[in-house]
């Protein structure tokens, strides 16, 4: 498989959130605004890039019996780095994401790439795969965060275009229930159109 194909797989066909349904916890929890979605997406992308490359480098020397704990230690290390970095340089974002930054450790998308791809492939494809997966994860979080912020708060990326005097926000959209509703509708729509496309191609 060519590098560009590996990259594109993560963006759409094997997108972690909308196709593989991995990493649901951060997806549902932090997408109450576009900026939070973007920050979580970028932090996760950083972690998956670093951990996939690292796992790929040491793939031949890690005994199979301890590979999962080893990957977890590596992922946890990079997550903690990202956490320190956000706390030192972007305290506001760090505060908004709260406990969800340390919880990137248990994002199945990252563990999944280490186990399913990086542990079996050389470093360059592993890096490209992680980049595709990370960016694929990020765009879904940004779209979801934007939809919820627009409907639930009348703003996008903290820019208020519909103040409360002209638009009554659907508060439910920024509550947990809104996360399930919008993610469910988004995945449903995407599946509906891909099925229609597949049927038309037959």
């Amino acid at each position, binding site marked *: 498989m060519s590098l560009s194909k590996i990259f594109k797989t993560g963006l759409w066909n094997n997108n972690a959130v909308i196709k593989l349904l991995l990493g649901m916890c951060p997806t549902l929890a932090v997408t*109450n605004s576009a900026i939070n979605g973007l920050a979580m997406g970028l932090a996760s992308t950083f972690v998956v890039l670093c951990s996939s490359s690292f796992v790929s480098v*040491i793939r031949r*020397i*890690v*005994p199979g*019996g*301890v590979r999962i*704990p*080893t990957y977890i*230690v*590596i992922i*946890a*290390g990079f997550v*903690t*780095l990202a956490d*320190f*970095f956000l*706390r*030192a*340089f972007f*305290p506001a974002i760090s*505060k908004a994401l*709260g406990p969800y930054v340390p919880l990137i450790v248990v994002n199945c998308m990252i563990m999944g790439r280490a186990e399913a791809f990086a542990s079996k492939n050389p470093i360059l494809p592993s890096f490209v795969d992680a980049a595709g997966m990370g960016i694929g994860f990020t765009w879904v979080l940004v779209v979801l965060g934007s939809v919820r912020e627009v409907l*639930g*708060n009348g703003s996008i990326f903290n820019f208020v275009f519909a103040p409360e005097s002209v638009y009554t*926000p659907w*508060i439910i959209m*920024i*509550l947990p229930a809104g996360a399930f509703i919008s993610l469910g509708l988004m995945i449903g729509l995407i599946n509906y159109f891909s099925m229609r496309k597949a049927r038309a191609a037959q």
Partner: protein
Amino acid sequence: MNLSARMIITLTVTALVVGGILTVFYKSVEPRIEHNRLEEEKKAIFAVLDGASAYDTISKDIALASGKKRTVRIFKGKDANGNIVGYAFVANGPGFAGIISMMVGLNVDKESLAGMKVLDQVETPGLGNKIVENKFTDQFKGLKIKPKIGYVKLKKPEQPTDIQAITGATISSVAVINAINNEVNVVLGILAEEGDGAAAVKAPEGK
């Protein structure tokens, strides 16, 4: 080398390397993290004490009912001429979804509040988290604290000690009031004990 030895060595080495990298990185960013925390505290103190341009910190350990000790910090705000303009302190209390933490300003007469700012909260977005909005927090400016702060619902407060609770978020509103009432008592006790300005520790960050 047998397999279990290889497994032990792999995990140990990985943990040591990762731990080492983290230690070095943390050491290099720690001053910045601490700086951010202090900046935030400083901003909050000046936000709740109008006219303050510097502050001293009074630290005092008080005994809790459980036998443990708790350190209460009171920030004595001063204006440019060194006159005391009020006292700020942090009040914490359980809210609807988690701990609500606030910076509270007390006027120098110790009869009313100078202001309030929420530092940390995880209340429900759109309902309980309205406690951070000025519309709610401005009510605490000049609010009388004796005998204690209360609240009314859906109408303008008539008593000088009352605020109007947020519609649909009474629990969060009451949590704020309870936390402030409790901490005000503690702080008034300490201030009465210390006398004005006695045993004040000069804080290096208070510029």
